[in-house]
């Protein structure tokens, strides 16, 4: 930044305001306030809820600010202040960059600093675009061969293949998925491998594997007087009397929920009109294998479980700008570093050089 004053600054009020905006001191004071707000605000938010970031990351920032921040008030006050201070800092940065261009552009050495400022402005612009017009669809669960429509993005995602890498102890190391992105007419837009640190990137849309899990595909239940009924998760299965049966949850081997131990399934019996009547747990141990749903006795016969991949799909229309901004910022730092290392050996000379330019 350049804090030099023009000859007219003492008389022209606009020049005075301009000089205030481009003053390094103004930027520093804003930066310190920004740091104080973020530091204190984030610690308090963490103390209130260590997982606060999960809620904030579930939506693009502007949408979180619009939909969820009011409900968090006054806990979200620090975020509102942060937004205000960020805009002021960016304004200061913008004016400084313009100032440099108007007054110091003859100095090639300062080009590094100019590029850093420009890069940061592009990153910020991209962030604003992404937070305003982006979308995040999370926890999309798919079995191999299964497809789903992502209405919010106008896309269909298909999991073609799934390979789960495990270590010797059986812990999941990585989930390697072959996925296809298509539009609603079935036209393939993109496809390929998606795994940790290597998501499928299609323009501003990113498909990345979040995790994997075992989930039930089909559950076989012997319903008293009706024989064996196959329930394909997550669909409902019709019973002979018009009522329906569905799997509402699944406990993996070793998983616990209250008094129940996995593996097993929670089944809900609903009326023909869809009203939930009874819910009970069926497991594989002798005492949990059979349960009564009203007047119906049911026995768990088997569960066909399979590996399921969980995906998050994000669309960020500003991400290209952010990446270009980061590239320019990086180039600027290299340029600045080379210029710095070629400076006069004494700092007194450097300070003089800085202030005279």
């Amino acid at each position, binding site marked *: 930044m350049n804090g030099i004053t023009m000859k007219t600054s003492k008389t022209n009020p606009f020049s005075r305001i301009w000089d205030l905006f481009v003053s390094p001191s103004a930027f520093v004071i804003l*930066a310190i306030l920004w740091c104080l707000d973020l530091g204190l605000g984030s610690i308090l938010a963490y103390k209130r809820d260590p997982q606060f*970031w999960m809620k*904030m990351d579930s939506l693009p920032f502007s949408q979180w600010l619009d939909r969820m921040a009011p409900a968090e008030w006054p806990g979200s006050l620090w975020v509102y202040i942060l937004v205000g201070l960020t805009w002021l800092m960016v304004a200061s940065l913008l004016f400084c960059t313009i100032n440099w261009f108007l007054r110091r552009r003859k100095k090639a050495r300062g080009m590094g600093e100019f590029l850093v400022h420009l890069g940061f402005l592009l990153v910020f612009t991209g962030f604003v675009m992404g937070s305003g017009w982006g979308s995040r669809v999370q926890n999309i669960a798919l079995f191999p061969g299964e497809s789903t429509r992502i209405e919010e993005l106008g896309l269909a995602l298909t999991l073609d293949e799934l390979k789960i890498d495990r270590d010797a102890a059986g812990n999941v190391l990585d989930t390697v998925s072959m996925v296809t992105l298509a539009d609603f007419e079935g036209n393939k837009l993109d496809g390929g491998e998606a795994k940790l*640190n290597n998501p499928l990137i299609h323009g501003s849309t*990113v498909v990345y594997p979040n995790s994997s899990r075992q989930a039930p595909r089909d559950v076989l239940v012997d319903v008293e007087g009706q024989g064996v009924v196959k329930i394909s998760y997550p669909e409902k299965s019709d019973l002979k009397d018009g009522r329906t049966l569905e799997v509402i949850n699944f406990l993996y081997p070793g998983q616990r929920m209250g008094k129940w131990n996995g593996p097993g399934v929670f089944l809900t019996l609903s009326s023909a009109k869809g009203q939930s009547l009874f819910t009970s747990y069926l497991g594989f141990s002798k005492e949990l294998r059979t349960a009564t749903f009203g007047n119906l006795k049911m026995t768990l016969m088997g569960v066909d479980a399979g590996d399921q991949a969980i995906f998050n799909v994000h669309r960020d229309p500003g991400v290209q700008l952010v990446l270009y901004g980061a590239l320019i910022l990086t180039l600027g730092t290299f340029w600045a570093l080379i210029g710095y290392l070629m400076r006069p050996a004494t*700092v007194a000379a450097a300070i003089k050089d800085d202030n005279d330019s």
Partner: protein
Amino acid sequence: MHQYTLYSHYVTIALYAAALLSTPLVQRRALIPISLAFTGFAVQLALLIVRWVSAGFLPVTGLFSTLHFLTIFAVGITLYFAIRYKAARLLPATMLVTLLALWKAGQGDMNLAPLTPALDTPLFFLHVSTSFAAYGLFEVGAIVALYRLAGLPASTNGMERRMLDECIYIGYILFSWCMIAGSLWAYLAWGSYWTWRIKGLWSTLLWFYYSGLIHVRNRPRWQNTPINLLTIAGFGLVLFTFLGLGLLFETSHPLK
């Protein structure tokens, strides 16, 4: 590997302690503490390389490895200043901070844990190495600022201001690369270059803090006491962001 690590760890501590205790010699024979510190530095560097080759990846996760990594940079930078700017007087302070860091490192697990798949990317190397190089510079910068604040000469040819400037400027550039690499990595791993995780927030805070500092470091009005205090406070933020968050909070960069 554990025995070798343990042995090297204590040899390093002994050498740095000897460098610290030889402080009275700095006035007249700087070569002795410099040689001791340099030998300790070489042992630490050898330990890092052996563990790196043995593990197949840069071992910089966990309290033990990260504190060793940080001290390698801090000692290396101090030795560079000691030779380039005749600033061997910085050694006692750096040695003291380094010994404290290595004492804390000794409380961590010295075994090499397998690399978690998320860290298996070149961005990890770039992100961590630039981050700790910057932390090392910020640490030495704070030590120089402390000397200036106390009115103690750190360099025999009056290059304290130059050293402070190099620490802030080059540290800032390295930290910028750390942030860029980290953001790119987050984009590839989590689908977003920005998250509201507390570690990311405080790293950004640190970046903006030094952004402010870098803008005033050569301004006449901010010279002497203000810049010294800001540099020392900056290292306080580094310590909290690196150690405080990693030890006291549930973060994406755990040290517990």
